[in-house]
């Protein structure tokens, strides 16, 4: 029984068909993601402003990795946390919302991890 409902965010990337069965993850992408994610965390974990977090060049480059980044983002969300929801929504065009629970950062994170598990990413 899923513990989230799916909604389409209002600002999803246009005309993007996301294929969850074919994320092109290879070691090169993994290395690139890790370098960008480390840079992003180092630069923005100390900031409270989500707009500053998502505007950071590393974050934007991760969004640019598109579907290949999804399993890597989910792993980082699982292992380190952080405001990855914005990137995931823009790449996937979906937005799992906690069902029957208050929408806190923790429950939204759990909803995304559950979605990622259901999709076979993590």
């Amino acid at each position, binding site marked *: 029984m899923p513990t989230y409902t799916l909604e389409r965010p209002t600002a999803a990337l246009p005309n993007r068909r996301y294929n969850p069965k074919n994320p092109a993850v290879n070691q090169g992408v993994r290395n690139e993601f890790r370098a960008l994610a480390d840079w992003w965390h180092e630069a923005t974990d*100390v900031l409270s*402003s*989500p707009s500053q977090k998502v505007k950071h060049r590393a974050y934007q480059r991760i969004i640019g990795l598109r579907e290949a980044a999804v399993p890597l983002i989910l792993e980082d969300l699982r292992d380190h*946390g952080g405001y990855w929801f914005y990137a995931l929504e823009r790449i996937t065009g979906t937005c799992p919302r906690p069902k029957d629970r208050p929408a806190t*950062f923790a429950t939204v994170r759990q909803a995304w991890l559950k979605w990622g598990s259901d999709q076979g990413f993590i």
Partner: protein
Amino acid sequence: MDSSYNCVAWAAGVTTVPWWPFEWPYYWPQNVPLEESITAFVAAFATLRYVECDQPDLEDGIEKRAIYADAQQVPTHVARQLADGRWTSKLGDLKDIEHATLADLAGGLYGTPATFMKRLVAGGSDNRTRPMRQGSD
């Protein structure tokens, strides 16, 4: 790292949801402009009965908040005054700390203190650790 709340939420006495004029799941008070401006931040804290004041000095029976802003006057951080006049801040997703003065966090990513707000202390108690209100979704 704990993204459950941020500096604004911490200053508002909330530890369950981060506050910022941004999209869900960030919380922002209803009827307060969803904009990154000092005016909007002042209005947000006005929903908690804070009013603007001139200076951050400790006053009996008064609790204060300091809103930091960058060179473009965009809010970057909010600090909460403790009962002894020191301050406490949540450093983004990182831990919350105590600091002796507002200048301790000024000059870098957080900019400088731009606006101060005050209200009467509720029940005369130390507001250091007791959340006074929970955010909502």
